[in-house]
C-alpha cells in the first residue's frame, strides 16, 4: 500500500525484515534501481555494491594532470640519474686498470730510446697486461685541437711533447701498483711520470656524482610536491563532499570506510596521471638517448639504460600511485578525526 493511499492510522510497515540477513537475491535484471546502480559502479565499501558515493572528475579534473606532469619530470630525472650512474660505472671500469706513462725528455732520440726501454721494463712488472707506446702520429692528432696543424712534436724544432705509453693492468691501478711501476722505470727513464688514468678523471666522476645526487634530490622534491598536490586535492574533495561524508558518518560509516572511498578515488586519478606521465617521460628519455647516442662521444655511450634501469623507471608511476593513495588516506583520516 502506498503512503499516499493511506487514510490515517492504517499505515503498514513491510513485513519483510528491513535489515536483510539472507533474503533471496534479486533476479529482475530490468529493475530500474539495480540497473542504474550497476551503471553508477559503487565499490565504495568493498561490498561489490552499486552507486558512486564520490563522483569522479577523472581527466576533466586537474589532479591527474598535475600527477602526470610530476611523473613525467620524475621519470626524466630518474632516467638521467641512472644514465649518469651507468656512464660513471662504464668509465670507471674502462679506466680502473689504465695507467699513463709520460717520458719527459726534450731530445727526441733520447726520448724514443727511453720509451722503448720503459716499455720493456713495464712489461716485466707483474700485473701489467700490456704497455703500448702511443705512436707519434696519434699524439700529434690528439694535439691538433689545441696546437693546430703542423706543430707536431715530431719536429725537433717545434714544441717538444712527451712520449706516451698506455699501460693496462690486470687489476685496479691503486697507489701501490703505480709506485711499483715508478720503481721499475727509475733506471731506464728517470724523468718518467706515471699516472693512474682514473686519477685524471676524478673531477669528472665527482661532477657526475653531484649530478646523480641532484637527480635523486629532484626525485625527492617531486615526491614532496606530489604529496602536497594530492593533499590539496584530497582537502578540496573533502570540502566538496563534506555533506556526503557527514551523512555516511552519521549512518555509522567508519573512518576507514570513508577514507577508503577517497583513497580509491585518488588512486584512480593517480593511476591515470601516472600512465600519461610515464608515456611522456619515456618518450622524452628515448629521444634524449637517441640524441646523445648520435654524438658518438666515447664517455656518453656507456650511459644507455638497461632492462633493469627501465624497470626502475617503470616503478616511478607505481610509487606515485602508492604515494597519492597513502597521502589521501592520511589526510582524510586526519580530517575525520576532527569530527566526533
Amino acid at each position, binding site marked *: 500500500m502506498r503512503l499516499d493511499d493511506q487514510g490515517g492510522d492504517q499505515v503498514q510497515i513491510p513485513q519483510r525484515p528491513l535489515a536483510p540477513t539472507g533474503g533471496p537475491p534479486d533476479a529482475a535484471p530490468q529493475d530500474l*534501481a539495480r540497473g542504474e546502480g550497476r551503471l553508477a559502479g559503487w565499490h565504495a565499501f568493498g561490498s561489490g555494491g552499486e552507486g558512486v558515493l564520490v563522483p569522479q572528475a577523472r581527466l576533466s579534473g586537474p589532479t591527474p594532470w598535475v600527477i602526470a606532469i610530476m611523473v613525467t619530470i620524475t621519470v626524466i630525472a630518474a632516467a638521467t640519474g641512472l644514465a649518469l650512474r651507468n656512464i660513471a660505472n662504464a668509465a670507471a671500469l674502462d679506466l680502473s686498470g689504465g695507467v699513463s706513462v709520460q717520458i719527459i725528455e726534450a731530445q727526441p732520440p733520447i726520448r724514443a730510446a727511453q720509451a722503448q726501454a720503459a716499455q720493456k721494463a713495464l712489461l716485466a712488472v707483474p700485473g701489467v697486461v700490456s704497455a703500448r707506446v702511443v705512436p707519434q702520429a696519434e699524439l700529434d692528432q690528439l694535439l691538433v685541437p689545441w696546437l693546430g696543424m703542423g706543430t707536431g712534436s715530431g719536429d725537433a724544432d717545434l714544441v717538444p711533447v712527451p712520449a706516451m705509453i698506455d699501460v693496462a693492468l690486470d687489476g685496479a691501478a691503486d697507489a701501490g701498483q703505480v709506485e711499483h711501476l715508478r720503481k721499475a722505470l727509475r733506471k731506464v727513464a728517470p724523468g718518467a711520470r706515471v699516472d693512474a688514468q682514473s686519477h685524471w678523471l676524478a673531477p669528472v666522476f665527482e661532477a657526475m656524482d653531484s649530478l646523480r645526487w641532484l637527480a635523486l634530490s629532484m626525485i625527492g622534491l617531486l615526491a614532496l610536491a606530489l604529496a602536497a598536490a594530492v593533499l590539496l586535492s584530497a582537502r578540496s574533495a573533502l570540502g566538496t563532499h563534506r555533506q556526503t561524508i557527514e551523512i555516511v558518518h552519521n549512518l555509522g560509516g567508519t573512518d576507514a570506510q570513508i577514507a577508503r572511498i577517497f583513497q580509491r578515488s585518488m588512486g584512480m586519478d593517480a593511476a591515470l596521471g601516472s600512465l600519461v606521465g610515464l608515456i611522456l617521460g619515456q618518450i622524452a628519455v628515448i629521444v634524449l638517448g637517441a640524441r646523445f647516442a648520435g654524438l658518438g662521444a666515447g664517455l656518453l655511450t656507456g650511459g644507455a639504460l638497461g632492462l633493469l634501469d627501465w624497470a626502475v623507471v617503470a616503478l616511478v608511476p607505481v610509487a606515485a600511485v602508492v604515494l597519492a593513495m597513502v597521502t589521501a588516506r592520511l589526510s582524510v583520516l586526519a580530517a575525520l578525526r576532527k569530527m566526533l
Partner: protein
Amino acid sequence: MTGIAGEIARFDNVGLRYGSDREVLCDVGFTLHAGHFYFLTGASGAGKSSLLRMLYLAQRPSRGMISLFGTDAITLPRHRLPGFRRRIGVVYQDYRLVPHLSAFDNVALPLRVAGIPERDVAQPVRDMLAWVGLADRMGARPATLSGGEQQRVAIARAVIGRPELLVADEPTGNVDPDMAVKLLRLFEALNRLGTTVVVATHDMHLLQKVPGSLIMRLDKGRMSDPTGALRYPPRRGSGQP
C-alpha cells in the same frame, strides 16, 4: 539491547557550549524509555537541534553525562561510535540526501555502510520505498523529487536498518500539512514495532496527532517536563501520557 529498565537514552545535567559563548543547553536531564514516542518542542533557537545532535552522536556535550543503550556515550572510544550510530536512525529537516545518488541508492546506503551483501540489499530497499509510496521513483535523483518525496526517502533511509531509536529533527518543516500528518503516521507505524521515536517540532498542532506521545519542552536551553511523563513514564499500552 537497552539499558536499565528499558532505558534507551539518559541525559544528566548536560550542558553544551559552542566556543566561549553562553551555554545553548543548560542542566538538561531526561530519560528516554524503549518503545515510546516523544515530541521535543520549543521555539526556534531553544536548542532542540543541538540536543538531538548529542542524541545521535554528532556532538559531545560540554558537561554532564549521556548514556545511550546503557553505555556511557561520553567516554565511548571513537572507534565504537559507528556501531552505536547504526542503532540510531536520523531524519533531518533538510533531508540530507546524497544528491548524486538515486532514491534507491540513498535508501540502500545504511545497509551498504553496515556491510550487508549486495544480493540482500535490493529487495528490502524496494520494500521500504514502496512503503513510503515511492516504488515508482526508485531511480530518481533527489533534485527531481518534491520536498515530501525527499523526506519520505530520508525516512526510508533512516528506518531501513530497523534502528532502536529514531531521531527526527523538524521532519515536517518543509512539507505541507497533509504530508506532515502522513509522515507522522510512518513514525507511528515504526513506533508500534518497538522503535523509540523522538520528533523535534515547533508545530504544536502535530502533538495532538499522536495520542499517547510524551512531550519534552526546551525553553532557552532548559528542559521542562510539562506532562510529568518523563519522570514517570507510562507503561506501553496504558494510553496515559
